[in-house]
């Protein structure tokens, strides 16, 4: 399976993602933001980081970069797109995913392990993961998901909520909401479930020495879903 990780100036999880994808069997290639097109891929990943310094709004300037048109075309033709952290922010800024990520409720950058509950497994991203709750890692300043009431109704009706913050047992209530995200939303799908954006970093939890391996479950499922 071929994957492409897009590097924007200021991306900083591109290498981590490359390592993770390769570890689980993807033939990954790195694509520079100023390239005209993306080589043939089964999966495109927008990695975490601070594209363009996250100036103006997170992801907004990357959302206007040259390569984005190709990402949009790829997504609209049904291709699989994954955006992690800043990648998620970019996907919302391009309009490929609904909503927006605001500054964390308590105004601080948060770096810690969190639990997320998988809300929908009828898609390639989570299909064969046996667990209901994954322990992943967040590291962000703007992960507070927000959308309008109409949008919320629409994403709920379409089962577009992918993962929600919760405790070890899967209680996704306000007590387990690290950043103030609406309905504890940590990740959402596009309507067709071929695009996933989420704040947690599965690529930081891919071996036992990194304080958790649930990220491995995510990538194992992903490579197996093709």
């Amino acid at each position, binding site marked *: 399976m071929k994957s492409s990780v897009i590097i924007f100036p200021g991306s900083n999880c591109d290498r981590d993602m490359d390592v993770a994808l390769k570890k689980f069997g993807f033939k990954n290639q790195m694509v520079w933001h100023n390239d005209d097109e993306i080589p043939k891929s089964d999966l495109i990943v927008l990695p975490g980081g601070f594209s*363009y*310094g996250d*100036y*103006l709004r997170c992801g907004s*300037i990357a959302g*206007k970069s040259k390569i984005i048109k190709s990402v949009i075309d790829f997504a609209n033709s049904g291709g699989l797109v994954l955006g992690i952290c800043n990648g998620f922010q970019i996907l919302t800024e391009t309009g490929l995913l609904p909503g927006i990520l605001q500054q964390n409720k308590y105004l601080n950058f948060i770096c810690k392990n969190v639990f997320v509950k998988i809300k929908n497994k009828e898609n390639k991203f989570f299909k064969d993961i046996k667990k209901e709750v994954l322990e992943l890692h967040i590291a962000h300043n703007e992960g507070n998901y927000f959308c309008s009431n109409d949008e919320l109704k629409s994403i709920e009706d379409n089962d577009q909520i992918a993962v929600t913050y919760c405790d070890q047992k899967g209680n996704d209530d306000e007590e387990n909401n690290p950043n103030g995200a609406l309905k504890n939303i940590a990740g959402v799908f596009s309507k067709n479930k071929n695009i996933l954006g989420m704040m947690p970093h599965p690529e930081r939890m891919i071996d036992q020495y990194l304080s958790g391996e649930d990220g491995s479950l995510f990538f194992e499922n992903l490579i197996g879903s093709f």
Partner: protein
Amino acid sequence: MKVKVIVTLKNGVLDPQGKAIQQTLNGMSFDNVSEVRQGKYFDIEVKESDEIKAKTQVEDMCKKLLANLVIEDYKIL
């Protein structure tokens, strides 16, 4: 009454955000943008009906909190 304040970086202080925004605008073919400098805008509701008194208080807030005069200027509108 409501007092409006704009806080901007002083002239000459590097504005990384403004620079990045300017470069992007140029890249989007807004070619004649030669500089962008960004700032913060505040709406402050003060329980005070006397305009001068309200603005004096806000001025104090600017000096003590809203702006760091080492790098920023403020303007009460």
